[in-house]
């Protein structure tokens, strides 16, 4: 053994010849605690300006924390089935959509029509082209909008660059949308399912699609990876 001192056995029994040099670690938890203090101080400043702003600050923090902590990635939910065949994140996104639909339905019904069209987008040519462009962009850049912003917080310089050009692209898109693409949305339908087909059919359609995609996702992963999870 003396000739091969570096050989080490890991707990699962994999034998490695050499290990990467372990650098002396410094805990980042104190920095995290400082950041919490900073976050509440900034929250307090926002609160004095407007309580709504302070709440949005905390909602952003919650979304960022959850996305990072669970490694949630909307990009991966579309990309992984295309590349590796994995669909675990796709299925998690479907669960999120199902839960959100139920919650939003309660709020929308409670508002008695006032919020029916909230979050309902026109189905037009710009949305279709935009969807394809967005899909290509998020896979190449390694993160969608929320993912890019989240990865900036994780320390990715590549995503900082991509965020900058995301902003430039948004400006460009806003210009062309106002000057040209909007024309195609004039007659584009904005369909709020419960108003279009009634709640019973809306539920059948919405949950039916979710369940169908979920089952297809399980089958797809079994076919591609030979395993469900």
């Amino acid at each position, binding site marked *: 053994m003396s000739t091969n001192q570096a050989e080490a056995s*890991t*707990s*699962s*029994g*994999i*034998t*490695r*010849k*050499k*290990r*990467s040099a*372990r*650098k002396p*670690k*410094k805990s*980042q938890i104190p920095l995290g605690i400082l950041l919490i203090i900073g976050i509440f101080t900034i929250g307090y400043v926002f609160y004095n300006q407007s309580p709504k702003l302070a709440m949005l600050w905390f909602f952003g923090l919650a979304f960022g924390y959850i996305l*990072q902590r669970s*490694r949630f*990635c909307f*990009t*991966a939910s579309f*990309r*992984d089935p295309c*590349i*590796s065949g*994995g669909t*675990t994140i796709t299925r998690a996104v479907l669960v999120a959509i199902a839960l959100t639909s139920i919650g939003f339905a309660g709020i929308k019904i409670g508002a008695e029509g006032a919020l029916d069209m909230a979050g309902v987008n026109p189905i037009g040519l710009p949305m279709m082209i935009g969807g394809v462009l967005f899909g290509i962009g998020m*896979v190449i850049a*390694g*993160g969608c909008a929320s993912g890019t912003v989240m*990865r900036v917080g*994780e*320390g*990715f310089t*590549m*995503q900082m660059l991509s965020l900058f050009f995301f902003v430039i692209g948004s400006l460009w898109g806003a210009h062309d949308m106002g000057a040209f693409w909007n024309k195609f949305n004039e007659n584009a339908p904005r369909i709020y399912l419960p108003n279009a087909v009634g709640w019973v059919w809306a539920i059948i359609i919405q949950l039916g699609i979710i369940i169908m995609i979920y089952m297809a996702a399980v089958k797809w992963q079994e076919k591609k*990876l*030979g*395993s469900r*999870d």
Partner: protein
Amino acid sequence: MQEYELDCMGEACPVPLIKTQKKMEELAVGDVLVVHIDHSCAVKNVPEWARTQGYNVEIEDVDDGEWDIVIEKNK
């Protein structure tokens, strides 16, 4: 038994996973691949994929935000 290394530092998804998949194909049964990674999502999806393939997987903390994923091609 051979040990191979794969440097995926600074790479975001899905690059580490694709590189790992390619590299694993080249390995013979019994070989070990060590993937160096600094992307928190890849630390989740690379081992997940390797487990679906039935390989032995081990994750080691190297430094803050740096990991070695050790995969043994045991079949």
